[in-house]
């Protein structure tokens, strides 16, 4: 393996040298000089940002719900009841106050993929959400679990706090920087395919049903 490594690196270096030698050195900007004139920072007010997020989610055919902080468990109860999901799995580190009575929430971190296949759905939090693209971002860890947890059950209910919603993709990357090496999943709507006649069909292998509960305290100016 080592010889291949050496050979490839040498080929790359001699390709660079060849271009410089023939005066055809068309190198671009140094990394720091790369122009990033695109819109990095958002410009929307809090309510507009949340509305945009909701709008984008609906376009993906995700369910959108909202509640205030004290009413999270009530909202979860209502959503699950409407969906007819009782036997839920949840990651460790999820606030106990989110879990309503009358449903089972099994701690899912150590459950094998095979066994996860038998649950009705999964309830998680998230790391952040992006309004412009209607995405939720999950990272391995408290309240979000290992990646298989939000993948195998056919239904996913994700709780998003309003302050976790950023407007642009760049703002999301600013926030993700410090935890960049954690396993990370961007989820934008239910699993889908357009492979047959370019029709978007919900649900192939990931959860076919996605609900997002946005938690916002209207009286608080965030």
């Amino acid at each position, binding site marked *: 393996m080592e010889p291949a490594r050496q050979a490839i690196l040498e080929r790359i270096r001699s390709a660079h040298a060849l271009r410089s030698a023939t005066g055809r050195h068309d190198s671009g900007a140094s990394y720091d000089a790369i122009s990033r004139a695109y819109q990095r920072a958002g410009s929307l007010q809090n309510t507009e940002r949340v509305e945009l997020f909701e709008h984008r989610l609906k376009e993906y055919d995700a369910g959108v719900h909202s509640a205030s902080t004290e009413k999270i468990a009530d909202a979860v109860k209502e959503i699950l009841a409407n969906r007819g999901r009782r036997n839920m799995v949840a990651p460790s580190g999820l606030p106990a106050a989110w879990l309503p009575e009358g449903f089972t929430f099994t701690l899912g971190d150590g459950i094998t993929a095979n066994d996860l296949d038998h649950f009705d759905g999964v309830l998680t939090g998230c790391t952040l959400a992006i309004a412009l693209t209607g995405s939720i971002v999950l990272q391995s860890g408290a309240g979000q679990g290992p990646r298989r947890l939000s993948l195998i059950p056919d239904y996913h209910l994700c709780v998003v706090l309003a302050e976790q919603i950023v407007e642009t993709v760049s703002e999301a990357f600013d926030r993700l920087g410090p935890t960049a090496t954690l396993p990370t999943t961007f989820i*934008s709507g239910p699993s889908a395919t357009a492979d047959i006649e370019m029709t978007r069909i919900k649900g192939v292998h990931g959860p076919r049903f996605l609900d997002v509960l946005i938690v916002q305290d209207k009286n608080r100016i965030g």
Partner: protein
Amino acid sequence: MNTEKNFRGQRHPDFPVAAKELLQDVQLRQNVRHATDVITAKRAHVVDEMQDWQTLRDAGSAVRQNALDHLDRYLTQFEEACIRAGGQVHWAIDAAEANRIAIELVQAHAAKEVIKIKSMTTEEIGLNDALAQVGIHAHETDLAELIIQLGKDKPSHIVAPALHKNRQQVRAIFQREMELPELGDRPEDLTEAARVFLREKFLRIPVAISGANFLVAETGGVCIVESEGNGRMCLTLPRVLIAIAGIEKVIPKFRDLEVFLQTLPRSATGERMNPYNSLWTGVYPGDGPQEFHVILLDNGRSEILGDAEARQTLKCIRCGACQNACPVYRQTGGHAYGSVYAGPIGAILTPQLDRFRQSASLPYASSLCGACYEVCPVKINIPEVLIHLRGQIVREEQETFAGKIGPWNVGMQIAASLFASGDRLALAQYLGRIGQKPFVASSGFIEHLPFQLGGWTQTRDLAPLPAQSFRQWWAQREKTAENSTHTKAGGQS
């Protein structure tokens, strides 16, 4: 017909031959046109709403360029970070070496089956065939790839490899291969069948093989962009994961993804974001495969890097937008290119990867209309590269004896000598006007040229030489002007 992948040294017909056959397949043309129309419209919608689209393209282009400028540094940086995070990095000079490494890794786990995520790179190296030769079956898990695999077909598009199959055709394949005689033909029925068929495999098979959309030098992270969730299944459930990536896939920093995760989905599928993006770094305890390998593949890429005009080809992020925008692709579909990479990107990438060995006709499979350049999210000037490659092909042909005495070269030499002298040109035009008489049809056009020249008139009519040349007209015009001050400069006869 035989359109085998040329990277494996098998014969495939030239583009003009394959295109002619495929143009006669009406169903295929309808499917391709429908699919490309749908994606093109969706793309236009989500690109137009982005006021900063052009600046995103600029940044994307500059980042990819920077990555190529310092490719050796970024690759070793990626390697170091990936190893530090518990991953293992392998280097492969060519397809054979990459396949050998992958096979050894699979065999080390005594696996007879692997699950796979769609990847152009593994297509490029013919991995599935190589695995099959040693008795390892690779299950494709993308719906489109599954359709292709079960139908014993070939992918026709980077992003939507099965766009040439409609639902009835898909149903017929699934009924036969999954033994589901009652299967309906609604897309929902078909995806449900695929879900059930593959879930058992996801849960059972311990080794997965993927490509990679981006390798992040700074963190050692790998990013894969997908829709269906089969990617997530392959990336999280097996014990062992092997990612095979071209060396050009590296980007400098984590934050660079903020550019590509905006331009790639909008360009590729016309969505603001595709359903799933996965990002992981090495091995993470308790989450995902506990053994992770990256195979860095050269296979001709480092050579392209030395070509100042053509190296921009390597900026490609495989979005497929150029294919959908291309009038030639929209007519023929991907199979006519006889290569893994079709459309405009295929026309420039394939001949360079195989050093024109079997794909010298591809740089001609374009009308140079420029639509591909306009949509490219990393601003690859495809027409410029095409012209550059055509020049290389002609130069290389001229180097050979057959090329020197071939009609093309002889013709060019004669043309050069004619155009160099006004008198000789005038003589040639005079002879031409006499010589063309038998070929001018009643339509006033030349519909069939004789001998080698017939290729030109196969698809178009040729206006005959006018009775009077421009030079003759100009000379006469000056004479007439001397005689009459009021003569209008009218057109030629």
